């Protein structure tokens, strides 16, 4: 996941894993180290949509 970045400013993300299985993060949060935007990981899939598209 080291090439994944923030979709908005393309800066690095910091991982906060809540649940892991076999080295895979199942639930957690990715936070942009620059703008602070938070992206959820659900069922092993990071949601990196810009926040305003997440519920659109």
């Amino acid at each position, binding site marked *: 996941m080291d090439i*994944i*970045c923030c979709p908005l400013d393309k800066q690095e993300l910091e991982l906060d894993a809540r649940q892991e299985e076999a080295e895979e993060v199942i639930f957690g949060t990715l936070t942009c180290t620059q703008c602070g935007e938070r992206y959820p990981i659900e*069922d092993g*899939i990071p949601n990196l*949509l810009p926040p305003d598209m997440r519920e*659109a």
Partner: protein
Amino acid sequence: MSVREEFNEWAEDGRDKGMEERHWHTAKYVLARMPVEAGDTVLDLGCGSGYAGRALRDTKNAGRVYGLDGSPEMAHNARGYTDDSAVSYLVGDFDHLPFEDGSIDHVFTMEAFYYANDPHETLREVRRILRPGGTLFCAVNYYEENIHSHEWQDSISVEMTRWSGNEYREAFRDAGLYVAEQDNIPDRETEIPDSAAFPTDSWDTQDAMVERYREFGTLLTVGVST
């Protein structure tokens, strides 16, 4: 409707699998052409069921494959169809790619590109994330010359971009991608009934159906980043 809403519905009623089956007729030839070397990192834009990434792992030993889709349900289904840990799925938008500059070797996209909110921005984003010499294999069945596709917009709530082959080449160049080739890949597998069967529910004439599948098929444009 948004991409998320529209394609979540498709994923929920199984259209992800239906598309995989139909698109495979031409997508397999597109994938075979890609200059993917063992270990390469590949991105599938609008991955749907995720078949392309799985195929590139199997046939070319791609190192890591990302399937990106704007529909969480599509990505969720795709995740369920493989347990290869080198295949990652993520939810994202074509115009806001969550990848670092120059981090991807090759990009594939089948029947998805024209849903981009701003296709010019998508091309610039692809160019940004590709390493020098990386390629974009962009395959579409919906395009200007394929007159049989024009009506598709009527049944899809997401706005679609309908470029001609020439417009694809120009847009690639505007985004800083060299155009390496453009081709029509025929679908030789969709069955076409005897002429006696026409008109059918979907086709007035056999000629039209032959033109749609055997001649127009899938428009492929290949771009190379620098």
